């Protein structure tokens, strides 16, 4: 096939659940490529020599090579190619902001002058990973002889899972300590089932268990064991405890009944499965009108979860305009299709309640955009006198999360920055405490799955060097 023929292949569309149906279930929204579609889509790749996609993938997957294998129908080989760089393709294929990474500068999109025309790298990555799961055969790599070294991994989010996977394949013994009763971190408690089925996270964890990684749940490091105690039992420690501290706005009424942090709302819904209440025991308020404050993926997940819990109106209020929203385009589109309403350029001033302390509304003030701030986004400025009240029963605060302070608080010799994140060197995650490495959101602040994995990957390499050669 020549380039012209490749460019003539129409971009393949993944079938999606009908919005009217999907707001009543927890099933995934995009339903995946059929094999022949995947092959077609992979054939659209021009196999660039200097491939921008590889450069723009934070873990540098050899994208043209894996796409060529998909095009040949050799899905198994394609998956191994991806797994050289990325241990969690079924997850990244779903949640990576691909349009800003691997797909951003795709040659196909450039030639066809349409961002939508980029080769769907993420969807193909998802396809091959799903294909493997559907065969029921798990390809396990051959493990080298045991080194006799032991590593402790704190936190089972994408950073911790990556470190565990890399170190076990280098012959070390690995134990993962997780505070919650289930693994996955945000993948399990934050990102909803309809965007990332939990069966996938379970599958990846089972894979690591098969390789010999030991998982200990209900284990809060800093409480049941200190980092120093871990260092007595293990040759190296990785801290991947995430950015689990919810930010609040500090406005009046924020502690009323019916005001939730996105973390609480999503944890109840996802980790505790309260969408199945009363078949399971954890309750969640099923409100008719829900306002979500924020404009990121977390806000989209909250607003869409509220709809699935039966909200008649689910409204996102965001203080800047649509262009500044940090959420992925696909998530915003899905939210809109499902009927989520957006109020732009408004900011909450206070939350109102009835005599029993239950939320009845939220007072908003209109904003206009001023000069760009440090983040490069135009700073919102309130317009005095423009206040108005939006009547709602539940308010979800999704304005961001900060690094989890538990370990830094209990381990004063690990240095942190002014936002509470652990300071670690970018090359290998070394902290100020010898033998202790860190990566993911606890270092970066709330970031992304693939960045957390990238950090985990580099830390695992540095831990390997440290455990085998004592290099610090």
């Amino acid at each position: 096939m020549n380039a012209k023929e490749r460019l003539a292949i129409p971009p393949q569309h993944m079938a999606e659940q009908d919005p009217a149906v999907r707001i009543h279930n927890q099933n995934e929204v995009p339903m995946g490529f059929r094999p022949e579609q995947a092959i077609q889509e992979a054939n659209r790749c021009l196999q660039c020599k200097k491939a921008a996609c590889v450069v723009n993938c934070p873990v540098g997957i050899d994208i043209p090579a894996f796409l060529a294998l998909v095009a040949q129908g050799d899905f198994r080989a394609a998956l191994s190619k991806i797994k050289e760089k990325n241990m969690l393709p079924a997850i990244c294929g779903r949640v990576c902001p691909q349009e800003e990474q691997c797909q951003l500068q795709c040659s196909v999109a450039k030639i066809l002058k349409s961002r939508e025309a980029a080769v769907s790298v993420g969807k193909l990555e998802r396809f091959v990973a799903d294909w493997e799961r559907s065969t029921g055969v798990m390809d396990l790599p051959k493990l080298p002889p045991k080194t006799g070294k032991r590593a402790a991994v704190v936190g089972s989010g994408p950073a911790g899972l990556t470190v565990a996977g890399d170190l076990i394949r280098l012959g070390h013994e690995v134990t993962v300590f997780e505070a919650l009763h289930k693994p996955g971190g945000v993948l399990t408690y934050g990102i909803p089932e309809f965007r990332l089925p939990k069966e996938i996270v379970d599958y990846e964890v089972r894979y690591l268990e098969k390789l010999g990684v030991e998982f200990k749940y209900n284990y809060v490091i800093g409480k049941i064991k200190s980092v120093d105690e871990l260092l007595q039992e293990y040759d190296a420690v990785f801290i991947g405890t995430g950015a689990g501290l919810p930010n609040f706005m500090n406005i009046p009424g924020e502690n009323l009944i019916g005001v939730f942090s996105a973390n609480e709302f999503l944890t109840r819904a996802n980790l505790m499965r309260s969408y199945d209440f009363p078949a399971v025991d954890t309750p969640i308020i099923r409100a008719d009108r829900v306002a979500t404050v924020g404009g990121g993926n977390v806000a989209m997940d909250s607003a869409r979860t509220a709809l699935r819990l039966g909200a008649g109106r689910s409204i996102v209020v965001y203080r800047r305009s649509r262009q500044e929203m940090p959420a992925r385009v696909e998530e915003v589109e899905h939210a809109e299709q499902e009927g989520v309403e957006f109020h732009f350029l408004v900011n909450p001033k206070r939350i109102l309640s009835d005599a029993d302390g239950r939320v009845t509304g939220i007072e908003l003030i209109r904003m206009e955009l001023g000069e760009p701030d440090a983040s490069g986004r135009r700073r919102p400025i309130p317009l005095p006198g423009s206040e108005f009240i939006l009547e709602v029963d539940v308010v979800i605060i999704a304005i961001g999360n900060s690094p989890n302070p538990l370990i830094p608080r209990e381990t004063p010799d690990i240095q942190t920055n002014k936002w509470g994140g652990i300071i670690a060197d970018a090359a290998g995650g070394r902290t100020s405490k010898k033998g202790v490495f860190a990566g993911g959101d606890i270092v970066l602040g709330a970031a992304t799955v693939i960045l957390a994995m990238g950090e985990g990957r580099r830390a695992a390499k540095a831990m390997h060097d440290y455990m085998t050669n004592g290099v610090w």
Partner: protein
Amino acid sequence: MLPELYTILSKTVIAPRVTRFDVYVPEIARKRRAGQFVIIRVWEGGERIPLTIADADPQAGTITLISQSVGKTTRLLAEKQIGEKLQDVVGPLGTATHIEKWGTVVCIGGGIGAAPLHPIAQAVKGAGNYLITILGARTRELIILEKEIRAISDEIIITTDDGSYGDKGLVTESLQKLIDSGRTLDKIITIGPAIMMKMVAETTRPFQIPTLASLNSIMVDGTGMCGGCRVTVAGQVKFVCVDGPEFDAHQVEWSEMMLRLNTFKEYECRLSANGKEGRE
């Protein structure tokens, strides 16, 4: 052979709807300190609920939990038998009570509050304080741990609402009498229903007696991740699970804390409705 983690090794009903369990979790048994708690789940679809570590036996590897059946989870827990396992036990959570030698300390436990009070009272006594305890309940049979607490107290006062045992009246009336007697009271520690702790705070406030209360807000994770347990203390938002559970009772916004306990009331009633015993 060692028991499996989370196995219930003993169980006693110590008062109507109040059950005491010894659960096998050796690492928590070794590590826990007075004032800390665990979060448990009873079954796969169960809620995560906090319970204070009432006591621990590091040799046997067990922690003692004392639970009052008020809703679905505590009722399911009460049905668990010796030899069965809990689904999950995570801990020790929360900040341990800061104990020093203050002088004369009054520990006030209301109802089930006597259970979390016990380890703290023990530590208070252990630090060389003169310990006065006040245990209150609605009626005689709801007074728990009297024997254990009497054994460590220099003085003990029992009150019941109906006068069936000890003084008739509320714990705050006995506390007021102690204050009125002119004795120097250096520290008050109170655990019980929110309304009782609030009244204790109001009783000691005019006399500026330092008063600690152990808050029982609704929790999910217990690690500072969800913010569901938040309360306002001295005008600042605090997370009970990591910053607490103990706070300066004079600085807690009690009305807010009490309202928040009602967050899921209508849903909890639905759960209890198909259970054997309803909510109290």
